[in-house]
């Protein structure tokens, strides 16, 4: 289940601000984590992933942080743009399986 207080269903930011989206995952044995972006009417789109042997991974304007101690994942978006407006989901991959377990989404709204 989700950790109380970590997940925000909505996040509103100004263009140019940095955004941080948080997620709590449920299975301490999960070894692979992914952030997806879902725009209205579309399927989830891969943003960035991280394996459990890492605690940070950077992409272009995005950074994922993994804290296995508290089962917490975060997505940082630098210099947020209106095109970043979407619902963001974290997903975890329990070991030995093929299913991704998605968390609750956070709707990011970016105003110019």
């Amino acid at each position, binding site marked *: 289940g989700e950790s109380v207080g970590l997940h925000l269903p909505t996040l509103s930011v100004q263009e140019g601000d940095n955004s941080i989206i948080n997620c709590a995952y449920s299975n301490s044995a999960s070894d692979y984590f992914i952030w997806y972006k879902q725009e209205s009417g579309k399927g989830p789109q891969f943003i960035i992933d991280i394996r459990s042997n890492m605690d940070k991974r950077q992409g272009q304007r995005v950074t994922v942080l993994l804290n296995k101690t508290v089962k917490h994942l975060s997505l940082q978006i630098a210099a947020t743009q209106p095109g970043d407006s979407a619902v963001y989901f974290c997903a975890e991959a329990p070991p030995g*399986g*093929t299913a*991704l377990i998605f968390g609750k989404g956070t709707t990011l709204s970016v105003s110019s």
Partner: protein
Amino acid sequence: EPEVTQTPSHQVTQMGQEVILRCVPISNHLYFYWYRQILGQKVEFLVSFYNNEISEKSEIFDDQFSVERPDGSNFTLKIRSTKLEDSAMYFCASSAPGGGTGELFFGEGSRLTVL
């Protein structure tokens, strides 16, 4: 850029009717998946498929559901007798040869409305 394509984009059906949702995964991918998303909720895993058989399925994927890869390109989800609660967006996904749970590429979804 290769993509996963799904048809139909929207299907409206009566309760009790059979529905088939179709997907064309990315051509060199070997793992195929169906997920669903009830409006406003999170994405839920239904089933994964590899080497012409189901690898894993969730509790949602009961006897009313089946999957098939009838030829070298299509991957279908059949719901035998639809219920109102089957109304959702159904997403097909595929992943590359290296990964069962590697990067998943999702299609744009098929919206199913059961009346």
